[in-house]
Structure formats: C-alpha cells, structure tokens
C-alpha cells in the first residue's frame, strides 16, 4: 500500500465498505519441533453493523483468528500469509503504537471467563472509567458518569451500587455484563466475542445473548461471535463461517447455511446435534466417524476427506481445495469440490433404527430425601451456624433399563444428590432404597462390594476423569480388582480388553497414557471403567457437555447402546434440554434443591409447564430455522443456596407469580406438589386452570 492510499483510508473510511476484511489469512505457531499451521487460507468479510459467527470444534482455529485480529498471537504465532484490513488499513502492518490505539477503542474483545478479564483489586467503576480516560482523554468525573450510564445500559440492577463494587461481589452473569460494558465504553466499531456465555448457566446465557443482540443494534457495532454452539450462532448472527481444522469450509448467510448447507462437514454437524424430532430409537443421531486431525497430521487435499461420506479417492485427496462460490445465494461459499454433484436433500443412508429398551422393575427409590449442610458463620467457628439445604424432599423412583434425566442449573443440588446416592455423603433424613436395601445412611466404606460396583458414575470433565499418571488399561484393571472380578491377572486383563471393545476403542489404547487420548476417547474410558463391575445404576454427570458436538453424538449413542444391552438404569444429569429430550424416558427438573417438575419426557416438554421449566426450555438455543421459540428471559441470577428466598424457591424470577391467588402466597409457602394426569408432578401454586392456559414454548413451523 502506498503512503497516499493509507492516508485516505484512515482519514475518510467509507461506511459502505467492509469494516473487517480478512483475505487468505494463514497463521502458524512455531514450536521447538515444527511449524504448526493453525489457520490456512481464511477469508471473511464483516460489514458495518453485521454479526459474523465463527463456529467449529475445539482446535479448529476460530480463537486464533480472533487473536490475530487483535494481533495478540504471542511470541510463537506468526501471520505467514494474507492480509487483515480493518477499516481499509492492514492490521498486520501496524506498529505497536497504532495497535495500542486501536485495541480497546476500535476493536474490543470479550473472553470466555469473565473473572479473568476483570481486575479483582479494582472497583468496577474505576475499571470501566479507565477506558475512555485512556483512549479519549476524558476527565475522571465524566468517565464515571459514562460508566454508570453504560452499566445501566447492560441492564444491571442498581448501577450506583454496581460501579462501587469489586468484581468478586458480583455473580458470573453480572461479571460478564460488566465485561461487555467495558468493551462498549469506547464505542468500538468491532466487537469480538470469544465464547462469551460458555461459562454461564443457560437461563443467564439467554439474558446475555439478548443483551448483545440489542446493543449491537443500538450502537451499530459489528460483531465477530465465536462459539461452538450452532443454536447460539443462529440466535445472534446474520452471517456464519463454519471452520474445520484450520480452514473455513463454508460461509454465508445464517439461514442459507442452516437450510441449504453445501459442505459435507456442515451437514454432518447438523445431523449429529439433537434437534427437536430426533429420537434415540426411531431417528438416532449420526455421529461423524473418526477423529479431528492433529494440526501436523492433516491429510492431503480436503481436510475433512477421511471422515466424509462423499469422499472420492483420487480427487478429494489430490490438491488443496479452494473456496468456491455458490451462485444465486448471498455471498455463500463452500470449500468442497463435489458440492454440485451431491444430492443435498437425500436422507442419510446409514440411519439404523434401534429397539426400545423394556423398562423393568424399580431398582432405585428415593423417598423424602433431604441433605443439609451446616456452614459455620464466623472465621473462628463461632457465630451463627447456617444451614444450606442442598436437597429438599426428593422423592422419585427409577426403573431398570430406564433413563431418568435430572435437569437443573448450577446450585440446584444435582451434584449433592449424586454424592448421597453414591455414598460419599449420607442423607440428613429420608430413605434411599437400592435393590431392596436401605442405603441412605451407609457411607461407601460400609457398603459391600456388590452394592458399590452396581452404582457407578461417569464424570463431566474428560480431562479430569482419568488419573494422568496411570495407563488406561491399568485404571480399568484397578476397577476390576476393587470389584473382585476374576481370579487371576490374566482374567482381568482379558476383561479389560473386552471393556475397551465395548466402548469401541482399539485394544492398543490399554498401554496409552490419558494425555495421548482425545476428550471423547477419555470419556469412553471413563464409561468403560464405570461399567467394569457390571453397573446396574449409572449416574452420568453431564457426560458430554465438555465434548465437541460431533463427538457428543458418538458418546451419547455409546451410552445408549450399553444401556440397551445391560438394562442399566441411567441417571442423566444435564442442563442441556436438547440432549435430555433426545435420550431420556423421564425428566426431573430441579431448582435450588427442590424438584419442581417431574414426568415423562413428553409431559415435561409440553404444557402445562412449571414456570421454571418454561423459562429453561425457552433459553436453550436450537439450531433449526424451522423452530419458533417463545422468548422468556428470566430476570436476575439464581439465588445462592446459602440464602434461598422464603416460600417458593423460584418466586424471585417467576413471571407467573402475579397469577397466583391469593397474592403473596408464593412469598410465604413452599408450594405443594400437584399431581396432574399420567403421574406428571408440578411443584407450583398456580391453579390447574392457569396451568391449562400455558402455550407451548417450542413450535415447529409447517414445512
């Protein structure tokens, strides 16, 4: 670029031109061993006021693109080719001085962890005021006034109190709103959001998403929205760019990409997520075979080739595939050689219909279970003792071969429930019948081996579930030893290999260390370990929530298959209602230690709802353009379990509260459990007539 061109560009930038224009960008990280290409030939254009969604699995390079735009690639990252023009000026050529001016004032970034973006030692107001004071030399008083106004803009209650608070005094959702406020302080032209809601609860996420959308319109800010959640992208963005293994594979208008995808990866991705209408028996999910290639082990030709159903040998694995334009659509591109030949409307070929498992006799029965914790008030053990009611009057039964989903957000008591069931804690009162045996006050040390091996758990975090310094085989064998399986080491070794077969892992993995496995593979080992003693009841604590979308389907299916075979009772703890709808037979919704609604999946997902279930259903983003969702955004955050509201636990956020007669009943009394037809239970004061007037939250538009 010549000197005169750069002058005109910076002085008078034409608002009809793109605000961010990335062309053929390639980024590599240089390690001691080799060059690792993180992003290859990436192009995208963001117009003023437009929200661009970057979607892809972990390791696909979406965050690297964001960091490159901020020019924060660190010491090892280098831009090896291509250009990034921001308002016509090339970001790659700017020096530190210019970048300092642009960062925070023209381009702002919002990260995943709100607490990590805020300085814990500074008041919120001071952190916000710093931005305009630094970038436009605003006076301190004015800056604080602006800060107060923006805090009100991000819809935080009581802005005067908030700006004088320290970050740790705010909840996660409030912190993220402050981070958004900080990004907006300098009225940036481009906002980069890197998984801004992943660390938050669903109902809180819905509020943040609404806020971001509204602020984008109000300030005319362009957005680069990075997420792994297709539903969220559909809610927020106008345009989408799907990335796979360092390349953009498809980009275009959100509705066009969702309805008329023209890349096999996008198609496979949509077939692997549980949309309304999917069913574990009749229409199971289709997982993408194989694994994500490591950056230095990418195949020749198309990166998705080895996992693609439409792969053509000698063509797809020959040369690099360029982006090709799809005529007739609005800037719709696909990186596929065969997009014109594929019949995109053909139904998937290998969908197999599975037998529904028979539900047997009751294996687990909880009756009026309570678990309270005593928390001492003072620092020296003095002061008043507080009681945290983690579980209140929990009653349910689970049958053999059944999947019971336990749904709730953080702090609802689902983990405590799991601990009591496993015997890591003992119940305060109530009873647990496990195979005709009372176990509510038997800690795990006192349970016999049979009972222990029949109730096992699958954990949430795949990176934490295996001991990092023991081989995979050794960990499974240990479980077999503890459950007293087999008479000799050889027998246990053989059984361990069978278990690896059961979870569809190669037998060679027995010798591997956990760090050599991907997240999905680790989760499979965790499942194998849980089933080592022939478990009859398995508590799965969000087993797939930390996994990538394409892997989720495979792990879920595996769990279902093992359940069918062993007639296991699965207690599936989750906050993700899409997956719950897909795989569970019955659902139990929990809020602050109470079971607020329980019934079969159909009952819970159709009106009448408990008001909380209604809000939860509406909060979960669904990646389907045909689904019409009623927006119900809850006010505020989940109350702390240390200090629950009096009366009904949900009354502080309930939108139906005004319809309860007599008024004020919700503030005074915990509602009774109402028995509706077919064993559907709702814990609410609303009368049956009011409940009957509820409309469905999710409607599927006629095709």
């Amino acid at each position, binding site marked *: 670029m010549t000197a005169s061109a750069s002058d005109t560009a910076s002085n008078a930038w034409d608002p009809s031109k793109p605000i961010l224009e990335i062309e053929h960008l390639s980024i590599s990280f240089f390690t001691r061993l080799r060059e690792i290409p993180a992003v290859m030939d990436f192009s995208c254009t963001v117009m003023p006021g437009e929200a661009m969604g970057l979607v892809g699995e972990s390791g696909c390079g979406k965050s690297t693109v964001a960091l490159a735009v901020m020019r924060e690639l660190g010491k090892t990252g280098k831009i090896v080719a291509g250009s990034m023009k921001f308002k016509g000026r090339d970001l790659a050529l700017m020096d530190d001085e210019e970048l300092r001016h642009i960062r925070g004032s023209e381009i702002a970034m919002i990260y995943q962890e709100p607490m990590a973006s805020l300085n814990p030692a500074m008041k919120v107001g001071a952190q916000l005021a710093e931005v305009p004071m630094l970038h436009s030399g605003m006076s301190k008083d004015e800056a604080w006034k602006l800060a107060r106004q923006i805090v009100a803009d991000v819809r935080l209650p009581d802005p005067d109190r908030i700006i004088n608070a320290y970050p740790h005094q705010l909840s996660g959702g409030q912190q993220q709103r402050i981070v958004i406020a900080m990004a907006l302080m300098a009225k940036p032209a481009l906002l980069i959001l890197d998984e801004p809601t992943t660390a938050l609860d669903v109902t809180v996420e819905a509020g943040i998403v609404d806020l971001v959308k509204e602020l984008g319109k109000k300030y005319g800010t362009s957005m680069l929205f990075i997420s792994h959640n297709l539903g969220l992208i559909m809610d927020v963005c106008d345009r989408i760019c799907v990335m796979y293994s360092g390349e953009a594979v498809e980009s275009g208008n959100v509705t066009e990409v969702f309805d008329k995808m023209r890349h096999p990866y996008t198609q496979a991705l949509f077939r692997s997520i549980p949309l309304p209408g999917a069913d574990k028996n009749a229409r199971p999910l289709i997982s993408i075979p194989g694994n994500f290639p490591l950056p230095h082990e990418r195949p020749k030709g198309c990166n998705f080739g080895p996992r693609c159903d439409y792969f053509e040998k000698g063509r797809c694995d020959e040369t690099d595939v360029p982006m090709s334009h799809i005529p007739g659509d609005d800037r719709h591109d696909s990186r596929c050689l065969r997009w014109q030949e594929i019949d995109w409307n053909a139904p998937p070929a290998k969908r197999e219909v599975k037998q529904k498992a028979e539900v047997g006799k009751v294996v687990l029965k909880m009756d009026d279970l309570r678990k309270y914790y005593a928390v001492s008030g003072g620092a020296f053990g003095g002061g008043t003792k507080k009681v945290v009611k983690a579980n209140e009057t929990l009653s349910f039964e689970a049958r053999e071969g059944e999947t019971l989903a336990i749904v709730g957000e953080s702090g609802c008591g689902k983990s405590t429930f799991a601990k009591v069931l496993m*015997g*890591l804690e003992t119940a305060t009162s109530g009873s647990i019948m496990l195979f005709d045996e009372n176990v509510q006050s038997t800690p795990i040390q006192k349970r016999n081996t049979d009972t222990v091996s029949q109730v*096992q758990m699958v954990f949430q975090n795949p990176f934490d579930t295996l*001991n990092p*310094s*023991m081989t995979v085989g050794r960990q499974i064998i240990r479980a077999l*030893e*503890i459950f007293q399986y087999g008479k000799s080491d050889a027998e246990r070794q053989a059984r361990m290999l069978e278990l690896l077969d059961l979870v569809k892992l190669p037998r060679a993995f027995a010798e591997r260390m956990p760090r050599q496995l991907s997240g999905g593979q680790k989760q499979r080992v*965790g499942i194998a370990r849980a089933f080592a003693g022939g478990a009859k009841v398995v508590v799965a604590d969000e087993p797939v929530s930390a996994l990538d979308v394409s892997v989720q389907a495979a792990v879920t299916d595996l769990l279902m298959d093992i359940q069918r075979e062993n007639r296991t009772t699965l207690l599936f703890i989750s906050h993700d209602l899409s997956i719950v709808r897909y795989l569970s037979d019955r659902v139990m919704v929990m809020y602050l230690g109470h079971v607020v609604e329980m019934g079969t999946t159909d009952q819970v997902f159709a009106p009448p709802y408990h008001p909380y279930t209604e809000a939860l259903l509406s909060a979960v983003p669904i990646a389907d353009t045909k689904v019409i969702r009623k927006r119900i955004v809850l006010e505020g955050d989940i109350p702390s379990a240390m200090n629950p509201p009096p009366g009904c636990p949900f009354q502080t956020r309930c939108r139906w509260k005004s319809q309860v007669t007599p008024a004020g009943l919700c503030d005074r009394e915990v509602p009774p459990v109402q028995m509706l037809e077919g064993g559907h239970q709702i814990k609410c004061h609303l009368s049956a007539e009011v409940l009957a007037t509820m409309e469905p939250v999710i409607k599927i538009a006629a095709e």
Partner: protein
Amino acid sequence: MDTLTWTGTAGTILLPVLQVAALALALALVAKLLFALAGLDGPRLPGPDGATTARSPGDMASIAIRYCFFAALAAVVFMLAAGAVMPSPVEAGILGAMAVRFWPVWAALVATFVLSIRFRRKLGLYGKLFDSTVGMIGFAIVLFWVFTAFFADMIITHDPFAQLSGLKNKPPGIATADSPFGWYLLGGDHLARDVFSRMVMGAREVLKIAPAATLFAFMVGITLGLPAGYFGGRLDTFISFLANLVLAFPVILLFYLLVTPEIRATGIPIVLAALLFIFPIIFLTVLWNSRFYTNPPRRNLYVGITLLIGLWAYSGLAFNLDPLGVWSMEPNMLNVFVSVVFVNSPGVFRIVRGLVMDIKARDYVAAGQTRGEGAWYIMLWEILPNARGPLIVDFCLRIGYTTILLGTLGFFGLGVSPDSPDWGSTIDDGRKLLNLFPHPALAPALALMSLVLGLNLLADGLREESLKD
C-alpha cells in the same frame, strides 16, 4: 621440579586474549548503559534518507557484548583443553592439570549428555530438561559433582589426610618433593594436606548425606502431609501446628542442642531417629498394602520384603543394633542426619498438604471414592503421582539447602569428625588464616557455591519444563 603456573604454556597466548576480551566486555557494557541512557538504543534507527535504516549504537554495543563474552569463554575453554593435550603438568598449568585429573568425570558427563539428548523424547520430564539451556547447565554442574564424588578415588592426587612436610599453607601449584604426583595443585592447608584432594573428597562427604537426608525428609513430609491435606479438620490442625512449632524454632540453636553431649546423654537424638526413620517403612508398607490388598499373596510378599529390609536397616541405623553389622551410622553422623531431616520435613509437609488439597477436588479422585477405594490408595496412588512435578522441583532446591546446612554444621564443627574433608569443616579450618592464605578456604567455598547454584538452576529448568504442555 618447578612450581606450576595457573595457565601453563597455553596461557602465554590465551591469557592476553582473555584479558583483552574481558576489558572489551566491560567497556561494551558501560557503552551500552550510556547509549541506553542517551536514548540511542533500539533495534534500528532511521537512516538519513528515511527509507533505509542503520543499526543503533546501543544495538552495536549489544553485539559487542555478545562477541566479547564468547571470546572470553573460548579462551577459558581452550586453556582447559590445552592442558589436556600437554605432555606434563608444567606445560598444562594448574587449570590444565586439574582438567586432566577430572577426566573420568568429563567422560561420564559426555556419555550421559549424548545418550540423554539422543533419547530425550522418550524420557518424560527428564528428557524435557534438555530443552532448557538453564536446566542443562544446572544439570551439568550437579552431575559434575556427583561424578566427582563417585570417581573421587581416581581423581585425588594425594591422600586427603596425609601431611607432607614443608608444604604448610603453600600456594597453589607448589611442587612436592616426595610424592608420586609431584604437585599440590591447589596448594597446602594449615596442616600441610592437599587442598585439591580434600575438596574432591569433600564432594563425596557432602553428597553422601544431603540427598539421603532430603529423601528421608520427603518421606516424613509426604506421610504426614497426605492425610493432613486429604482429611483436613482436626488432624490437619494438629499436624500443621506441630509443623509450625518446628519451623518457628531457631534452626542453629536446635542443632547445637541436638549435638550437645548433655542432650545426647538424655537419648533425645536416638528417640528422634527412632521416630523419623520409621516413616519410610510406614510409607512403603502402606503404599504396597493399599494397592495390593485385593491380591493377598502379592501384598504379603511386598510388605514382607519391605518390613524385613526396613526393620533390619532401622535397627542398625537408629539404634546401632544390627545383628549382622551391615547397617550402622556413626553417632556424630546420626545426629547431623536426624537434625537435617527434622528441620526439613515441616517444609515438605506444607507443600504436600497444599498440593493434596488442590488435587483432591479432581474427578479421578471422586472416581476412586465412588468405586470404594481406601483413603490411602487414593492418597498414594491417585494424588501423589500427580503432585510429582512440584515435588521434584522442591527436592532439587531442598538438596541445595541441605548442602548449605551441612556446610554450616561443618563450619560450626558440629557433628563431623575434626579432620573430615567435608566442605563446611574445610572452610572453617581455612577461616583462621584467611587474610594470609585464602586458598584453603576458597576452594571448598567455590565448590559448595557451584553445587548449590547447579541445583537451583536444575530446579529452575525442571520447573520451567514441567509447566510447559
């Protein structure tokens, strides 16, 4: 025979080179400082025509600093290398001759490094150490002293206890009339013994105690820290209080107390030894039992072997009652050993306790609990292996502290025999005439410093590498 010069024949050329390089290095450093203050620093300055750029004066100074440093280093290396090829110590000089005496150490060092670097990708954390320059330098220094201790008998030029007449306090390189080697390479001490040989033998004395004492301190700290961190509550409060008591007591005073004859007569050191030495046996017994209790024959085998060897060694080391006379420790040595273990274990305890409190919240610990594992299995097999990174780093640092502690003890004449060649005692011996003859104290002091420096660098390198990926 002639007195040796420091650098021998090669020095006539290399010494001036070294001097010039050192002088230039000093000048360049001053210049760099001045340029930086004058604002002439930075990678490039704009040239006269604006487009092309020239190196800034500050940058030139940086380049000069680098080359001068390499020149000086090369001169020293050549001096040592030249010594190795010279026919006799006279031409080789003191440095050259010492370099030759250390040949088994060099050979072992080269072999270790070549093999380690060749297979470093298969060697885990140890292999990754060779990716860090600092770690490699530290490891080389530590290995140097380890091999010196190992090959000490081949390296020494004289018996470290022998006195040759007329060589009292003589300077380095002095010729000896009636010895097969012919020179005291680093001179003689106040009793006319060879300083060089005593320094080499001192390495053996130090490295005999320090790592073993640190290992024992780790056994005690781990065995107490694991339950304190894992169970918490009253047990934790109690053990932590004891640890704080020990940490709060002045260390040197404690040492004096432990080695005073009156206190020794009361039997306190023996009681302490009995207490501290039992921990490794407990540790190993619990380790095997928790893992193999599902398989009684194998458990009995491992626990049996542990108890047999452990109690045998225990009877010998703590009470000097070994019936076969294999295990024993001099009362002096026992005192030193016990005191060092005693003051080090509370530190280890605190680190282990903190690490356990962090790791016990992991899912794999919960997985162990939900399949009904015993508490000790979880502590020893699920938690401890995953705390190894920080513990290894601390182990290296702690050997360094222990070495200094042993030096301090020797310096005060505590716990070791009067003519022991260990570095602390030697420094103390040389202290009395330090003004007139510094060399007898300087040699062991530099040796001690380099070993501890090496351990610290090694710990730094390990920490750096263990934090990466």
